[in-house]
């Protein structure tokens, strides 16, 4: 794993974090639930907690889908290319490219071999890692690896991800510390990934 320069992290008095969605996106509960599951994966291994709130400007973490130039100097580039980005602590800004074909159910594979479908939860788990202070990893199976092929679902934290986040925030007392499942056992599937690689 890697950390941002200076190892920024959420301060001790801000470990019970709130998140909210840009109301202009008018997201459904199903879509919001995907983010809830993604936050829960990080909360399970650290002392951090994440609570959804409706007050967008006042929340610690703000989530929005935008297209092209959306005002932060990092414009999105249309379908595929860059999918999302997030800022290091304590910014809390989490932006996703609304030009992607986001799949929200986790069912991204099995039928079409080469599509532009992108699993939303996979990207959300990755970007939350940035929001919490993790940089990119060279471990290809890790959540914090920079690329994700279309049609691939990768949502389970690996040992590398867990080591990184626990270095920053300590361990969840309820985390049993067992090693995550092997690559073959993890919830991961791809049909287009191999082709694109």
């Amino acid at each position, binding site marked *: 794993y890697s950390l941002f320069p200076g190892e920024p992290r959420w301060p001790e008095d801000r470990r019970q974090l709130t998140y909210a969605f840009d109301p202009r996106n008018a997201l459904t509960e*199903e*879509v919001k639930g995907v983010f809830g599951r993604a936050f829960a994966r990080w909360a399970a291994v650290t002392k951090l907690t994440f609570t959804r709130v409706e007050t967008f400007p006042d929340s610690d973490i703000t989530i929005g889908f935008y297209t092209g130039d959306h005002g932060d100097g990092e414009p999105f580039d249309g379908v*595929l290319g860059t999918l999302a980005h997030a800022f290091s602590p304590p910014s809390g800004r989490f932006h996703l490219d609304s030009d992607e074909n986001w*799949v929200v*159910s986790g*069912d991204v594979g*099995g039928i079409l071999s080469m*599509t532009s479908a992108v699993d939303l939860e996979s990207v959300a788990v990755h970007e939350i890692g940035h929001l919490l202070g993790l940089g990119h990893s*060279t471990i290809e199976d890790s959540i914090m690896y920079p*690329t994700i092929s279309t049609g691939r679902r990768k949502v389970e934290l690996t040992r590398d991800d867990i080591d990184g986040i626990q270095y920053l925030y300590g361990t969840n007392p309820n985390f049993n510390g067992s090693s995550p499942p092997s690559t073959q056992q993890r919830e991961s599937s791809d049909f287009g990934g191999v082709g694109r690689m």
Partner: protein
Amino acid sequence: EFFFPNVTGIPPSRLLNTTRNLWDAFRNFTGCRPGVDGLYKLKQYFQRFGYIPENFSGNFTDDFDDILRHAIEMYQRNFRLNVSGELDELTVRHLVIPRCGNPDIVNGSSAMHGGKKYEVNFAGRRGQRFHALKR
């Protein structure tokens, strides 16, 4: 409009229009070596993700120069590819994979190697010499 319950819910017309992206043009650079032109967009790609310093003040040319070669080497090192400094097929196929927009290298230092840091510096604008140092 952009959320789908599963992959079968994506309209075929939308898929047909979106199976290629702007980075797919990089496939044309497969096998490029010094002396081949048309590469300034690839330099912009590498700069976006930190492989060429953000404060590089010169204009990118289409030349396959030391700036590009060192960026490719560092990219190959970060993604555990064969470090050749050349745009081999595997490197180019990797370049076009969708990815996070956050840079891999921040402030000229890559931490993607578990503590091994690679620092990049320009020795000066004249001649655009570019060095990669392993610490």
